[in-house]
Protein backbone atom coordinates (compact mmCIF):
# COMPACT_ATOMS: atom_id res chain seq x y z
CA UNK A 1 0.00 0.00 0.00
CA UNK A 2 1.42 3.36 -1.05
CA UNK A 3 1.87 5.86 1.75
CA UNK A 4 1.03 9.54 1.90
CA UNK A 5 2.95 11.36 -0.81
CA UNK A 6 3.84 15.02 -0.83
CA UNK A 7 5.21 17.22 -3.60
CA UNK A 8 7.61 18.92 -3.81
CA UNK A 9 9.99 17.71 -1.12
CA UNK A 10 11.69 21.10 -1.04
CA UNK A 11 10.73 24.56 -2.26
CA UNK A 12 12.65 27.81 -2.06
CA UNK A 13 10.73 30.94 -3.03
CA UNK A 14 11.07 34.65 -2.62
CA UNK A 15 8.92 36.68 -0.30
CA UNK A 16 5.75 37.72 -2.09
CA UNK A 17 5.67 34.75 -4.44
CA UNK A 18 3.08 32.00 -4.50
CA UNK A 19 3.71 28.35 -3.68
CA UNK A 20 1.41 25.36 -3.96
CA UNK A 21 2.04 22.19 -2.01
CA UNK A 22 0.38 18.94 -2.95
CA UNK A 23 -0.59 15.91 -0.92
CA UNK A 24 -1.80 12.53 -2.15
CA UNK A 25 -3.30 10.61 0.77
CA UNK A 26 -3.44 6.86 1.16
CA UNK A 27 -6.11 5.50 -1.15
CA UNK A 28 -9.46 5.17 0.60
CA UNK A 29 -8.63 7.54 3.44
CA UNK A 30 -11.41 10.09 3.80
CA UNK A 31 -9.64 12.13 6.48
CA UNK A 32 -6.81 14.39 5.34
CA UNK A 33 -4.85 16.76 7.55
CA UNK A 34 -2.26 19.47 7.10
CA UNK A 35 0.31 20.25 9.78
CA UNK A 36 3.30 22.56 9.92
CA UNK A 37 6.53 22.65 11.91
CA UNK A 38 8.44 25.88 12.06
CA UNK A 39 12.04 25.84 13.28
CA UNK A 40 12.38 25.21 17.00
CA UNK A 41 8.68 24.67 17.52
CA UNK A 42 6.39 21.70 17.74
CA UNK A 43 4.29 20.36 14.88
CA UNK A 44 1.09 22.39 14.69
CA UNK A 45 -2.29 21.45 13.20
CA UNK A 46 -3.51 23.54 10.28
CA UNK A 47 -6.71 21.94 9.01
CA UNK A 48 -8.73 18.78 8.48
CA UNK A 49 -10.72 17.59 5.47
CA UNK A 50 -13.34 14.89 5.45
CA UNK A 51 -13.53 13.91 1.81
CA UNK A 52 -13.79 17.26 -0.02
CA UNK A 53 -15.22 19.22 2.91
CA UNK A 54 -13.22 21.31 5.37
CA UNK A 55 -14.07 19.92 8.79
CA UNK A 56 -11.77 22.10 10.88
CA UNK A 57 -9.75 25.12 9.76
CA UNK A 58 -8.93 26.38 13.23
CA UNK A 59 -5.16 26.08 12.77
CA UNK A 60 -4.86 28.06 9.54
CA UNK A 61 -2.67 31.07 10.40
CA UNK A 62 -4.28 33.66 8.10
CA UNK A 63 -6.05 34.16 4.80
CA UNK A 64 -2.83 33.87 2.80
CA UNK A 65 -3.25 30.13 3.17
CA UNK A 66 -5.80 28.31 1.03
CA UNK A 67 -6.38 24.58 1.14
CA UNK A 68 -8.47 22.57 -1.27
CA UNK A 69 -9.26 18.92 -1.76
CA UNK A 70 -10.60 18.24 -5.20
CA UNK A 71 -13.09 15.40 -5.40
CA UNK A 72 -12.03 14.15 -2.02
CA UNK A 73 -8.76 12.81 -3.37
CA UNK A 74 -5.53 14.81 -3.39
CA UNK A 75 -5.19 18.13 -1.59
CA UNK A 76 -3.30 21.34 -2.26
CA UNK A 77 -2.15 24.02 0.13
CA UNK A 78 -1.44 27.37 -1.48
CA UNK A 79 0.42 30.19 0.21
CA UNK A 80 -0.11 33.55 -1.50
CA UNK A 81 1.79 35.79 -1.01
CA UNK A 82 4.45 33.98 0.97
CA UNK A 83 6.10 35.69 3.92
CA UNK A 84 9.37 34.86 5.70
CA UNK A 85 7.54 33.42 8.71
CA UNK A 86 5.87 30.83 6.48
CA UNK A 87 9.14 28.91 6.27
CA UNK A 88 8.96 25.47 7.80
CA UNK A 89 8.11 21.87 7.06
CA UNK A 90 4.55 21.19 5.96
CA UNK A 91 3.21 17.71 6.66
CA UNK A 92 0.16 16.03 5.29
CA UNK A 93 -1.48 13.06 7.00
CA UNK A 94 -4.45 10.83 6.31
CA UNK A 95 -6.60 8.33 8.16
CA UNK A 96 -9.58 6.09 7.60
CA UNK A 97 -13.09 7.42 7.98
CA UNK A 98 -14.47 6.86 11.43
CA UNK A 99 -10.99 6.28 12.80
CA UNK A 100 -9.89 9.87 13.12
CA UNK A 101 -8.74 9.20 16.62
CA UNK A 102 -6.16 6.69 15.60
CA UNK A 103 -3.40 5.94 13.18
CA UNK A 104 -2.94 9.07 11.14
CA UNK A 105 -0.21 8.32 8.61
CA UNK A 106 2.11 11.15 7.67
CA UNK A 107 3.89 12.04 4.47
CA UNK A 108 7.57 12.92 4.34
CA UNK A 109 6.82 16.63 4.36
CA UNK A 110 7.58 19.61 2.15
CA UNK A 111 10.34 21.88 3.37
CA UNK A 112 9.41 25.45 2.43
CA UNK A 113 12.00 28.19 2.60
CA UNK A 114 10.92 31.79 1.96
CA UNK A 115 13.82 34.15 1.32
Amino acid at each position, binding site marked *: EAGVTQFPSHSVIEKGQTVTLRCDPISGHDNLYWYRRVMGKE*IKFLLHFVKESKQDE*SGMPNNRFLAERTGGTYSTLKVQPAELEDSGVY*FCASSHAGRGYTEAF*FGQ*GTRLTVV
Partner: protein
Amino acid sequence: EDQVTQSPEALRLQEGESSSLNCSYTVSGLRGLFWYRQDPGKGPEFLFTLYSAGEEKEKERLKATLTKKESFLHITAPKPEDSATYLCAVQGSNSGYALNFGKGTSLLVTP
Protein backbone atom coordinates in the same frame (compact mmCIF):
# COMPACT_ATOMS: atom_id res chain seq x y z
CA GLU B 1 -5.89 24.74 25.79
CA ASP B 2 -4.30 21.31 25.41
CA GLN B 3 -0.62 21.16 26.33
CA VAL B 4 2.03 18.50 25.82
CA THR B 5 5.50 18.62 27.37
CA GLN B 6 8.13 16.05 26.57
CA SER B 7 11.29 15.35 28.53
CA PRO B 8 14.15 15.12 28.21
CA GLU B 9 14.70 17.16 25.04
CA ALA B 10 17.62 14.93 24.13
CA LEU B 11 18.86 11.61 25.42
CA ARG B 12 22.02 9.68 24.65
CA LEU B 13 22.15 5.99 25.53
CA GLN B 14 24.64 3.21 25.10
CA GLU B 15 23.38 0.22 23.17
CA GLY B 16 21.57 -2.03 25.63
CA GLU B 17 21.02 0.75 28.19
CA SER B 18 17.30 0.90 28.92
CA SER B 19 15.53 4.18 29.68
CA SER B 20 12.20 6.02 29.53
CA LEU B 21 10.89 9.09 27.76
CA ASN B 22 8.23 11.21 29.42
CA CYS B 23 5.19 12.96 27.98
CA SER B 24 3.19 15.13 30.39
CA TYR B 25 -0.12 16.46 29.17
CA THR B 26 -3.12 18.56 30.06
CA VAL B 27 -6.21 18.12 27.93
CA SER B 28 -9.94 18.60 28.14
CA GLY B 29 -11.28 15.10 27.74
CA LEU B 30 -8.56 12.85 26.42
CA ARG B 31 -9.64 11.00 23.30
CA GLY B 32 -6.24 9.49 22.65
CA LEU B 33 -2.52 9.85 23.28
CA PHE B 34 -0.25 9.03 20.37
CA TRP B 35 3.42 8.18 20.07
CA TYR B 36 5.25 8.72 16.80
CA ARG B 37 8.82 8.18 15.72
CA GLN B 38 10.45 10.62 13.31
CA ASP B 39 13.69 10.07 11.44
CA PRO B 40 15.60 13.02 9.91
CA GLY B 41 14.01 14.24 6.69
CA LYS B 42 10.96 12.02 7.10
CA GLY B 43 7.46 12.38 8.40
CA PRO B 44 6.27 11.05 11.76
CA GLU B 45 5.77 7.29 11.81
CA PHE B 46 2.90 6.00 13.94
CA LEU B 47 3.84 3.79 16.90
CA PHE B 48 1.01 3.61 19.46
CA THR B 49 -2.34 4.99 20.51
CA LEU B 50 -3.38 4.88 24.18
CA TYR B 51 -6.92 5.75 25.21
CA SER B 52 -7.27 5.40 28.96
CA ALA B 53 -5.21 5.45 32.13
CA GLY B 54 -3.64 2.10 32.88
CA GLU B 55 -3.40 1.08 29.25
CA GLU B 56 -0.11 -0.31 27.95
CA LYS B 57 1.08 -1.23 24.47
CA GLU B 58 4.25 -2.90 23.27
CA LYS B 59 6.12 -3.15 20.01
CA GLU B 60 9.51 -4.81 19.85
CA ARG B 61 11.76 -2.91 22.32
CA LEU B 62 9.18 -0.18 22.96
CA LYS B 63 6.46 -0.08 25.58
CA ALA B 64 4.07 2.81 26.08
CA THR B 65 2.11 3.41 29.27
CA LEU B 66 -0.51 5.97 30.24
CA THR B 67 -1.67 7.64 33.43
CA LYS B 68 -4.13 10.52 33.85
CA LYS B 69 -1.32 13.07 33.62
CA GLU B 70 1.51 11.51 31.66
CA SER B 71 2.71 8.80 29.36
CA PHE B 72 6.02 6.99 29.29
CA LEU B 73 7.77 5.40 26.38
CA HIS B 74 10.05 2.71 27.78
CA ILE B 75 12.91 1.56 25.58
CA THR B 76 14.40 -1.77 26.58
CA ALA B 77 17.92 -2.70 25.46
CA PRO B 78 17.95 -0.13 22.67
CA LYS B 79 19.89 -0.56 19.45
CA PRO B 80 21.47 2.15 17.28
CA GLU B 81 18.56 1.84 14.84
CA ASP B 82 16.24 3.12 17.58
CA SER B 83 17.91 6.52 17.24
CA ALA B 84 15.23 9.01 16.20
CA THR B 85 13.04 11.78 17.54
CA TYR B 86 10.05 10.45 19.48
CA LEU B 87 6.94 12.60 19.40
CA CYS B 88 3.98 12.53 21.74
CA ALA B 89 0.62 13.99 20.76
CA VAL B 90 -2.82 14.21 22.35
CA GLN B 91 -6.28 14.49 20.91
CA GLY B 92 -8.82 16.18 23.15
CA SER B 93 -12.58 16.39 23.06
CA ASN B 94 -12.39 20.13 22.29
CA SER B 95 -9.97 19.82 19.40
CA GLY B 96 -11.83 17.72 16.89
CA TYR B 97 -9.45 15.35 15.16
CA ALA B 98 -6.43 17.64 15.53
CA LEU B 99 -3.31 16.22 17.15
CA ASN B 100 -1.53 18.48 19.63
CA PHE B 101 2.17 17.59 19.56
CA GLY B 102 5.00 18.02 22.00
CA LYS B 103 8.42 19.15 20.80
CA GLY B 104 9.79 15.63 20.94
CA THR B 105 12.71 13.80 22.51
CA SER B 106 15.78 13.28 20.34
CA LEU B 107 17.24 9.87 21.13
CA LEU B 108 20.74 8.80 20.14
CA VAL B 109 21.83 5.23 20.79
CA THR B 110 25.54 4.60 20.39
CA PRO B 111 27.17 1.21 19.79
